[in-house]
C-alpha cells in the first residue's frame, strides 16, 4: 500500500514538474534572441542584437555573427535602456549618448570605427548638434542621428530609418 501511495505521489510530482517546465518554455516571457539592422538614409547601419543572456550589443554595421563580437568596437547595454548615435556620412567616428552607467562602450578595434562618448565633449557637441525650442533640446535638421530604444526594439530619427534584417 505504501509503495502505491509513493508511486502515485511520484507521478504527481513529475507531472507538476513537467507542467511547470512546459509553462516556462512556452511562455512568451522567456528570454529570446532578436536582431535588427537599423539603417539611416546616409547608408550607415547599426546592429541591435538582444541576446538570450540579457545583454544587448549595439554594433556599427550589419553584424551577423553568432557569438560576442571580438574584432569590432561596440556598445553593451541592458534591455531597458536607450542610446543615441550620431554618425555623419563620411566619417568613421560614431558619437554616442548612453542614458545609464550600465551601458558601456567596448573598444576592440583600435583601427576600425571609433565610438566616442557624447559627454566627453558635451558642451561643444550640444552647440553643434542641438537647438532649444523653448521647452526641449532637439537635434538640428541635417544631423545624421539615430535614437535606439532597446526595450521597444525601435529606432527613430529625423532621417529615414529602415530595418534591413529579414
Amino acid at each position, binding site marked *: 500500500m505504501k509503495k502505491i501511495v509513493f508511486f502515485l505521489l511520484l507521478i504527481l510530482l513529475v507531472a507538476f514538474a513537467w507542467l511547470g517546465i512546459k509553462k516556462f518554455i512556452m511562455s512568451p516571457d522567456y528570454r529570446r534572441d532578436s536582431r535588427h539592422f537599423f539603417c539611416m538614409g546616409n547608408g550607415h547601419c547599426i546592429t541591435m542584437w538582444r541576446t538570450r543572456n540579457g545583454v544587448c550589443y549595439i554594433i556599427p554595421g550589419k553584424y551577423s555573427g553568432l557569438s560576442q563580437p571580438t574584432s569590432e568596437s561596440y556598445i553593451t547595454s541592458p534591455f531597458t535602456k*536607450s542610446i543615441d548615435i550620431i554618425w555623419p556620412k563620411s566619417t568613421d567616428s560614431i558619437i554616442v549618448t548612453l542614458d545609464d552607467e550600465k551601458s558601456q562602450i567596448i573598444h576592440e578595434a583600435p583601427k576600425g570605427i571609433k565610438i566616442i562618448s557624447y559627454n566627453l565633449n558635451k558642451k561643444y557637441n550640444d552647440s553643434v548638434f542641438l537647438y532649444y525650442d523653448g521647452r526641449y533640446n532637439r537635434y538640428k535638421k541635417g544631423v545624421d542621428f539615430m535614437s535606439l530604444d532597446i526595450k521597444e526594439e525601435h529606432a527613430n530619427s529625423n532621417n529615414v530609418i529602415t530595418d534591413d534584417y529579414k
Partner: protein
Amino acid sequence: MGTLSTDVIKNTNGTYTVVGGKADGDKNVYLVNDAHSTHNANSQVIAKSVTDHSFLEDNGKAAVGATINLSDKSGANFLNNKIIGDKNLSILDYVHNAHGYQKYDFKTNGPNGETDGIKDIPVGQQEAYKYRGGVVDGVPGLSSNSDVPTVASARDIGNIGAGWMAGDWGISWNMFRDKADGLQRSQTGNPTEVEGQTTQKAERIGFDLGMKAWAKMINGGK
C-alpha cells in the same frame, strides 16, 4: 501622511517644472521656492495629480525636469476623442497600434497628436518629455472635486487609455495584468519583472472607468 508629494517651481512662461516628489498617498502638487526646496505646510497647492505616482519614475525618484502646463489639454483631448469617445475603436485595433511610438502611445506623441513626436529629442531629455504634465479635468471620472486642476503625466494618459480599453471590453483585471506584465517580461528579458507602480496605478484608474462603462452597456445603458 501628506508631507511630501510633487514639488514644482514656476517658470517664466507660466508652466511649472518638477523638482522633487515622493509617493506617499498625497496627490497634491506643491509650489516651492527653488529647485533645492521642499514644500511645507504653507506651500501653495497648484494642482492634484491623477495618482500619487504620476510624476515618479519606476525607480521611485521624481521625474525631475518634467514640465507641467496647466493650459495643456492634449491628454484630455486624446482620452476623450481617441479612446473613450471613439465608439468604432475595437480592442484589436487598439492593441495593434498601442506599442511604443505608435498612435496610442501618447507619451511619445507630438504636441498635435502626431505619432513619434519624440523622435528628435535627445535621449537625456526623453524621460522629461514622457512625463510632461497637462490637465485632465473634462475627462469623465478624472476631474477632481477640489479648487485646483487635476493633472496627469503623458505617461499616465497612455496607461489610463490602456486600462480603459481593457475595462470597456470586459477583460478582467487579472487577465489584463497577465498580458501587460507578460509584455514587460518579454521586453526587459527579466522573467520575474512586472510593470512598475507608476504604470499600474494609472492603468487601474482607466480600467475602473472602462469597467463602469462596460457594466452600463451590458445593463442596457441604464
